[in-house]
């Protein structure tokens, strides 16, 4: 699994070696930019009431505001 904000491997985070707390906090006001499955940069569209992020390999993620 990868951080969908910075694209780094979350393995270190899960082991307590790295901390993506800042990324998680920032994601409240940002759509994802990296595919959480492969860390590819996604094509992201932000509309007034929603966002859509597409990974060429793993398909489309959608959400509303505040990262939901």
């Amino acid at each position, binding site marked *: 699994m990868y951080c969908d904000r910075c694209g780094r491997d979350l393995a270190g985070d899960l082991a307590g070696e790295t901390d993506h707390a800042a990324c998680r906090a920032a994601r409240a006001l940002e759509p994802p930019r990296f595919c959480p499955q492969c860390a590819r940069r996604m094509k992201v569209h*932000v509309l*007034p*009431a929603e966002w859509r992020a597409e990974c060429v390999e793993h398909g489309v993620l959608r959400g509303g505001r505040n*990262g939901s």
Partner: protein
Amino acid sequence: MVSLSDPALAQACQRVLETGVGMDEADVLAVLEQPDEQIPAVLEVAHQVRLRWCGPAVEVEGIVSVKTGGCPEDCHFCSQSGLFASPVRAVWLDIPALVEAARQTAATGATEFCIVAAVRGPDPKLMAQLRAGVAAIRAEVDINIAASLGILDRSQVDELVQLGIHRYNHNLETARSFFPNVVTTHGWQERWETLRMVRESGMEVCCGGILGLGETVQQRAEFAAQLAALAPHEVPLNFLSPRPGTPLEQRPLLDPRDALRAVAAFRLALPRTILRYAGGRELTLGDLGTRDGLLGGVNAVIVGNYLTTLGRPAEQDLALLQQLKMPVKALSSAL
């Protein structure tokens, strides 16, 4: 009466309130340098000025990026520059999604929908996309359409007028003296020239900027004075949201007290202008900041999401307006 402890500044504020003529740069600087305990007083006088010269209504707007990322310019705050290692990928919005964005905006009661592109200026492909988008929106959504497409030439200005674009956004971003620290691929004067042509065309001019780029307080006052000289119909006020991969990634957020001083100061410099809360307000000022700004000179908001980042839900802003008994400007009165 204005209740500031500095008698000269109180007098300057009273003059703005009575005449509707904006403060000069020196007085704006005095507002920006007021001590913390005077912030409520300057916000209060700015609110009085806004009510007197603009009325109680609030103009609501939604924005969307029709062409995101891959921009050849190097605006140091922008995640859409193709020159930085930003995670934002270049992508175009198709026409159905553009119409959906307009529909989402209109559903909030907004009167304004601004189509934005990350470009130096529009090329034939972008102008074609805009033509198709405007026609599709007009067929389905009742809303004023604005545009923000960068630096224009005369023929492009004329085409936007023919398309019925009623307002054109082109931000000067910061004070002329600080601009070279923020952008090196084009000049402040080039932006000014586009704004001059837009004004001459009869389109409404929307021009603001971003606070917290590293400018001094003096440069903030300089910027307010330069905007006042332009006399735009609307001034959007953004606060820097440091974006990953940009040269300003590590800049600290603007102190919220300085942000509120600036809201009041810009209102006092521009008493009759639509002063819009734009990007970065959630990060810099939190939820309470929206309320403080609306009671301190702001009379317009961008609701919902921004171009590449998310905003707070439109419903929260609309509920706040209701609570403050500030009516949303209606489409009929906006036309």
